[in-house]
């Protein structure tokens, strides 16, 4: 990623003048495209492109046994793959710490917001539905978190829950479980002391730290700070405010598709 590394100086100089390398405003997101129900094999799916970053999320609903401490609830899991085809920096092999962090951030927001009513996934004693969300990063140009979060929410918005009949799972007979809340993600980067929204890959490389917040209409569901730099308290409040404002646009976008 040496060309991106070399852009560090340019990015830093521009940021000090409140300018970004691709001409965006400090709080502007790149163009977002959402497609829902892109896979017929999955019980939920969506593809999101955020600038040149492309993410596909597929959701499979399978038969499972509940967790012992929550016997009347379905289960939820989130898994992410940084496919080696998405970037020369992604290696073949088991999930890297980056992939695991991504999955866990998205998991926290979806779980805390209770946007999926896990109680509705109860079938009978010792049998529940498990919702398995798989994030597939197809093309990496920065801010995989926000794009993955958006794709995951679009994928579970109208989840097809199969029918369990006579010991068999029948997938072409399903009921729709609608999402109860929209946990949406907003990631910020700090570069040369300034805060920007939606860093692209070159900006990610140039940044000291990042802050992600997952928001409901008036609620914070998850937070993750990453990188070796630091944030002041005022900066954190500022970022959350910006996130809440942006959330309205994101919500309209996701509902309009």
């Amino acid at each position, binding site marked *: 990623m040496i060309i991106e590394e070399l852009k560090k100086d340019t990015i830093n100089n521009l940021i000090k003048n409140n300018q970004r390398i691709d001409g965006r405003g400090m709080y502007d997101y790149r163009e977002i495209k959402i497609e829902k129900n892109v896979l017929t094999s999955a019980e939920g799916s969506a593809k999101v492109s955020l600038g040149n970053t492309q993410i596909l999320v597929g959701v499979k609903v399978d038969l499972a046994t509940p967790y012992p401490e929550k016997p009347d609830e379905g289960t939820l899991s989130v898994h992410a793959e940084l496919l080696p085809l*998405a970037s020369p920096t992604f290696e073949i092999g088991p999930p890297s710490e980056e992939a695991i962090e991504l999955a866990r951030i998205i998991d926290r927001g979806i779980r805390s917001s209770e946007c999926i009513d896990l109680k509705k996934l109860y079938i009978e004693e010792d049998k529940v539905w498990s919702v398995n969300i798989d994030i597939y990063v197809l093309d990496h140009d920065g801010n995989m978190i926000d794009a993955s979060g958006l794709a995951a929410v679009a994928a579970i918005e109208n989840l097809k829950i199969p029918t369990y009949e006579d010991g068999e799972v029948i997938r072409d007979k399903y009921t729709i479980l609608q999402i109860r809340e929209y946990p949406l993600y907003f990631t910020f980067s700090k570069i040369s002391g300034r805060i920007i929204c939606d860093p692209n890959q070159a900006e990610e490389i140039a940044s000291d730290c990042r802050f992600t917040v997952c928001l409901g209409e008036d609620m914070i569901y998850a937070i993750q700070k990453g990188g070796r730099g630091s944030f002041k308290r005022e900066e954190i409040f500022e970022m959350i405010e910006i996130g809440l404002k942006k959330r309205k646009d994101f919500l309209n976008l996701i509902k309009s598709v």
Partner: protein
Amino acid sequence: MEIEDVEEKEELEQIETGEKREKEGKKSEIILYDPIKKRIDGREADELRSFKIYANVLKKANGSAYVEWGRNKILSAVYGPREVIPKHLSDPYKAIVRVRYMMAPFSSIEGRNRPGPNRRSIEISKVIKDVFENVIVTSKFPNTAIDVFIEVLEGHGSTRCVGINAASVALAVSGIPMEDIPVAVSVGKVDGKIIVDLIKEEDNYGQADMPIAIRPNTEEILLMQMDGKLTIEEFKNALDLAFEKAKIIQKAQIESIKSSYKYEG
């Protein structure tokens, strides 16, 4: 790419045998070919599913292609020639070709697949590698690696063939020298009838399944696998059918490449 532990290995073997038993049971129930209704999806015996090929769909990869083939959705991308890591794998006389064929966890109309390689995907990756090693001029790039990725986002029968068709296009636009663009198609037999382009149910419950990949200009066969029962006569007919349909697929591959470079005002 290693299978992590013995437990997992046993689990997978159980799944494979379980699938086989399921196949045996259901075979008697399903009618796969009927002179009036034709195949279960209504196709003629010698009819390909409808498909679309898109070249250059990803920004980071050196070459990429996306194919929708019936209900299959397969994405392929190529990186290279690039430095070999780990170094001990490099060949001082030519580029090494590595293929990774993977099915996404959400790619099956049944349950979720566990992510990561399994015995089936490893074997498929290997036979696909043999296809591309044949046509890529590896001698031009010693001590490098050419990585071909095939990701099955949604699978519905003949994914290795569709995967090869996608990867061929990705390679063709990547700038990596290759003498020809391989074409792949599956042929087989259901209810005594020789068919082309097997859909998942035909693959699971039919009488024979034979994926083939060829080098179109020389008509050489680069991949051939067979599973089932075919007489010599049936085999010959199936092979002829494969070559005939490969011409159609080749045309579409070439068209998809050329049209991705057309200028739109």
